[in-house]
C-alpha cells in the first residue's frame, strides 16, 4: 500500500513574523510534550554524552525485558513479540544515528548501570517500561536537531502506542 496517497503538496508562500500566541495555543493540546519542554530547557548543550545513547540502551533493555516476560509466560508470545521487535529495531536505528554523529560504526548499546530485569516480568512491568521510554524520548523532542528529531519522536510515538495496545 502506498502510504502517501492522497496529497501532493503545493506550498503557497506567506508573510512571516508575529507573536506566537497561537502557536502556544496549538501546543496547549500537547500535555506529553508540554511536560517535555520544561524537562528539556537548559539541557540542550552539546557537551555531555549523546542523549540518544540512553535511548538506545532503553530500547535494548525493553526488548530484553519483553523477552523475559515471554519466557516467563509463553502464552504472551503473540501479544508481546511485535513490541520486542519494535524496540529491537529502535535500538538499531538509534545506535546507527549515534554512530553517524560520532563518525564510527554502530555498536549495540551496552547497559552501563546494569539494572537487571525483574525476576518475573509481567505485562504490567513491560507497560511501565514502555511508558517511561515514550516519555524519555518525548522529552528530547524540543531540543534535538532536525536530522534526529523525527526518529526520536517516532520512537516516542511508537512506544506510546504500544502502551495503548498492551493496556
Amino acid at each position, binding site marked *: *500500500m*502506498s*502510504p*502517501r*496517497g*492522497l*496529497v501532493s*503538496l*503545493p*506550498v*503557497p*508562500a*506567506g*508573510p*512571516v*513574523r*508575529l*507573536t*506566537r*500566541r*497561537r*502557536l*502556544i*495555543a*496549538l*501546543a496547549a*493540546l*500537547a*500535555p*506529553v*510534550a*508540554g511536560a*517535555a*519542554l520544561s524537562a528539556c530547557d537548559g539541557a540542550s548543550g552539546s557537551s555531555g554524552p549523546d542523549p540518544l545513547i540512553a535511548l538506545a540502551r532503553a530500547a535494548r533493555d525493553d526488548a530484553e525485558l519483553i523477552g523475559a516476560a515471554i519466557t516467563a509466560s509463553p502464552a504472551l508470545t503473540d501479544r508481546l513479540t*511485535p*513490541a520486542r*521487535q*519494535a524496540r529491537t*529495531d*529502535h535500538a538499531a*536505528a538509534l545506535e546507527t544515528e549515534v554512530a553517524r554523529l560520532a563518525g564510527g560504526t554502530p555498536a549495540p548499546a551496552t547497559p552501563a548501570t546494569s539494572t537487571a530485569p525483574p525476576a518475573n516480568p509481567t505485562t504490567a512491568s513491560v507497560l511501565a517500561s514502555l511508558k517511561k521510554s515514550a516519555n524519555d524520548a*518525548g522529552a528530547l*523532542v*524540543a531540543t534535538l536537531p*532536525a*536530522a534526529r*528529531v*523525527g*526518529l526520536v*519522536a*517516532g*520512537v*516516542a*510515538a*511508537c512506544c*506510546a*502506542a*504500544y502502551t*495503548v*495496545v498492551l493496556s
Partner: protein
Amino acid sequence: MSGPAQQRASVDQASIDALQDVLETEHAALWAYSLIVAYLPTDLAERARGDSDAHRTLRGLIEQTLSDVGARPVSALPSYKPPTPVTDGPTAEQLAVVAETDTLAAWRSVLERTTDKPLRAAALDALVSGTVRCMQWRSSAGLTPVVPTFPGRTP
C-alpha cells in the same frame, strides 16, 4: 530583564511551509473519513467519526495558527484520489490507513522543519495521537506490525 522582546518570536518560513503541508494532509484525511464512513460497519463507522473529529480539531488549530502568524491557510481540494478505489469495508479501512499514514508523515516533517518549541510540542502530540489512530486502522485492515515502528517515516 524580560521585556517585550522576550514575548515575541518569529516563526520562520520553513515552519509556516510545514504547517501548510500538514494542513493539506489534514484536509485530505477529513475528506477520506467523510468518504469511508458510509462503507464501514457501525462500530468502525463510530470510530471513523471520532477520528474525523480529532482531525477537525487539528485542522482548526493549524488554520488558526497560520492566520495568527499572517499566513493564509491553504484550502481543501474539492476531492482527492485514493490510491485504491473505495468500494467496501476493507478498502475503506485501507484508505483510513493511508490517511493516517499521510498525516503522520506530515507531522513528522513539521518536527524536522521547525525549531519552535511550542510547535514541536504540538507536532509530537499529533504524532502520538495519530500513531494510535493509525494503529487501530492497521489492526482492522489486518496489517502488521499493527503499530508502525517508525511513525511518519516514509519508506
